[in-house]
């Protein structure tokens, strides 16, 4: 089992003919993801060919056309920042229900507008933007993470669900899990932007309800109060083993938000408050990034 994506997920790439879109669609195809088409306005009717995989996909001018022709339900967005919000709304409007936005550098007010647009489309889930994507090991990779570091669950086996605001730090965590022999159910990078499409709380809920997930690893960062909210949710609702790591205990200064930032969050958004909240909620919190895998192991053994 897994959350959000599996071997049956039919995926398109928006921005498939761009350099990054081509490369990563190809990588996903090599991993085994069921990509069924791509969208680049003005290139409709042409055929895209994966440089390494050699696989061919139809290109469409609009997501609506792509959905009609291919039955896709998920989209990987590689559209550059200036057009990315529009591309996400186009996907949502066209019936795509899982949108994975890899694009980095989308203006934050664009994402505010996207989120408000999506309130009228409750069936649509957005992952990202500015994220590595989502992977259910062995079944479906939609994103830029290196596939080989992940370990699929054996049939009937449950795995670790991973939720992260970071990219390479997630790979580090997954690599540690794989080394410790802990397979992963699904790994989701929610992205580091101020307004993410999907929050840690929402993913905690999905993983909590997924029988294929045996434990959850949450990788957070300083800033905002998302981790505090995740801790509060977990304390009340989650009964699975929980582990976490918070990056930024040595916070880089100089990225202050003036008075207003502190007023609004009601706390500093600092690592200490996050770690305290998570520990109190029952998370095994890793002391260093080298011990994320071990923290999961501790959480799992503590339960037994």
């Amino acid at each position, binding site marked *: 089992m897994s959350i959000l994506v599996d071997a049956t997920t039919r995926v398109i790439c928006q921005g498939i003919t761009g350099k990054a879109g081509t490369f990563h669609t190809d990588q996903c195809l090599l991993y085994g993801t069921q990509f069924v088409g791509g969208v680049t306005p003005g290139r409709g009717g042409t055929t895209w060919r994966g440089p390494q995989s050699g696989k061919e996909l139809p290109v469409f001018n609009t997501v609506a056309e792509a959905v009609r022709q291919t039955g896709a339900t998920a989209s990987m967005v590689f559209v550059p920042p200036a057009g990315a919000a529009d591309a996400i709304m186009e996907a949502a409007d066209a019936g795509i229900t899982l949108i994975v936005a890899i694009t980095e550098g989308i203006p934050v*007010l664009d994402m505010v507008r996207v989120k408000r647009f999506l309130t009228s489309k409750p069936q649509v889930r957005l992952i990202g933007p500015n994220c590595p994507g989502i992977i259910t090991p062995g079944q479906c990779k939609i994103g830029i993470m290196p596939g080989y570091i992940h370990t699929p669950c054996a049939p009937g086996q449950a795995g670790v669900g991973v939720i*992260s605001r*970071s990219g390479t*730090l997630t790979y580090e965590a997954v690599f540690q899990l794989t080394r410790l022999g802990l397979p992963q159910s699904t790994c989701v990078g929610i992205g580091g932007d101020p307004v993410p499409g999907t929050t840690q709380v929402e993913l905690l809920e999905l993983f909590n309800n997924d029988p294929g997930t045996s434990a959850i690893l949450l990788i957070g*960062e300083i800033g905002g109060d998302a981790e505090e909210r995740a801790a509060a949710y977990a304390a009340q609702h989650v009964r699975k083993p929980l582990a976490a790591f918070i990056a*930024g205990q040595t916070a880089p200064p100089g990225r202050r938000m*003036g*008075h207003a*930032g502190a007023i*609004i969050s009601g706390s500093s958004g600092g690592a200490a408050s996050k770690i305290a909240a998570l520990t109190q909620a029952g998370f095994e919190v890793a002391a260093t990034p080298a011990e994320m895998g071990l923290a999961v192991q501790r959480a799992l053994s503590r339960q037994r």
Partner: protein
Amino acid sequence: MKIHEYQAKELLAAAGAAIPQHIVVRSGAEAAAAFDVLSNGGGVVVKAQVYAGGRGAGQLLDYPDKLGGVKFCPTRELTQAVAEAMLRHRLRTRQTGPEGVPIRTLIVQADAQPDREYYLAMVLDRAAGLPLLMACAEGGMEIEEIAARHPEKILKTYVAPETGLLPFQARRLAYELGFTPAQVPQVENILHALARVFLQKDATLAEINPLALTRNGQIVVLDAKIDFDDNALFRHPDIAALRDVQEENPLEIRAAQAHLNYIQLDGTIGCLVNGAGLAMATMDIIKYYGGQPANFLDVGGSVTPEGAIEAFRIILSDAKVRGILVNVFGGIARCDLIAEALVQAGREVGFRVPVVVRLEGTNAEKARQILAEAANELPTLKTAADLAAAAQLVVELSR
């Protein structure tokens, strides 16, 4: 991106807010001339234009008297003298660090004679995913304290970006701040200007502190601070043109030009990492093992020889650096290519301090081999088996 106070006030004025008259000056003589225009029988206020906050309570370095970055001057002579002093001495505030910052630009401002001060700000509320307009009838310096002790005194209104601040929202805030019916329209104008600038120019923070009720009943923006979303500058050439690179850290500017995200810190161990989260985590583990990071440096998803060379140059230009930790997780990018880039960088730059490399991911074995082969050529280059070992080693070598 930050801008100066005078630029922020001019943006707000263009959006409909009332501000006191000011003239931008860069010499004592210009300041004296501005006094003639603005003093109007009274005095003027000379204000240093630097990006750091806390100017009023700051102190000019190596200056005999108590003088910060904001000064009321009742005479032409004092105006000129104060302006000259500010332009000659560095200013230290709680936000600048002990070395202070140079002052290159001043404004001479008509004296607004504030009778009462208010606080207004707009900022993104991440939890709600919406811009939030905040207002407090007690403005001035102690707003954070008020927020902590009397949160009920901070009025809050969410603003939907697609509709902007609605008339009733501005009206309600103005009345709830205690303004009179005659004053309310002036306050509404300023609230709408604040929201308009925030939304139309993609600000991340827009603060008016204080908003002043003057002795003659006018309501004006006495000081303002606006930060902008770097990711949205592509659609705001007018805002991008306001950038004052002289106010920014030269190393950080140089890093930005090479697409590196670099922030200078106070420690001794330089870091070169791919990915922001891993970079923060790397700093954390350095500290965990007793070291102090000299910088945050994210080289992005992949590592090119050119990027690595520039990154090492920037790190090493910080004289405090006594060791460097390279932590790269090769995902899509192959570790062997990254190792080659590091070796090339070592040849070009010359590693004057120990450089501990931890490479993991695709082709990591081959990468370690490449680094081992370069060991004679680059004697300070060391490899480590894992992140913990790498951190311990660099801390040890940097003592």
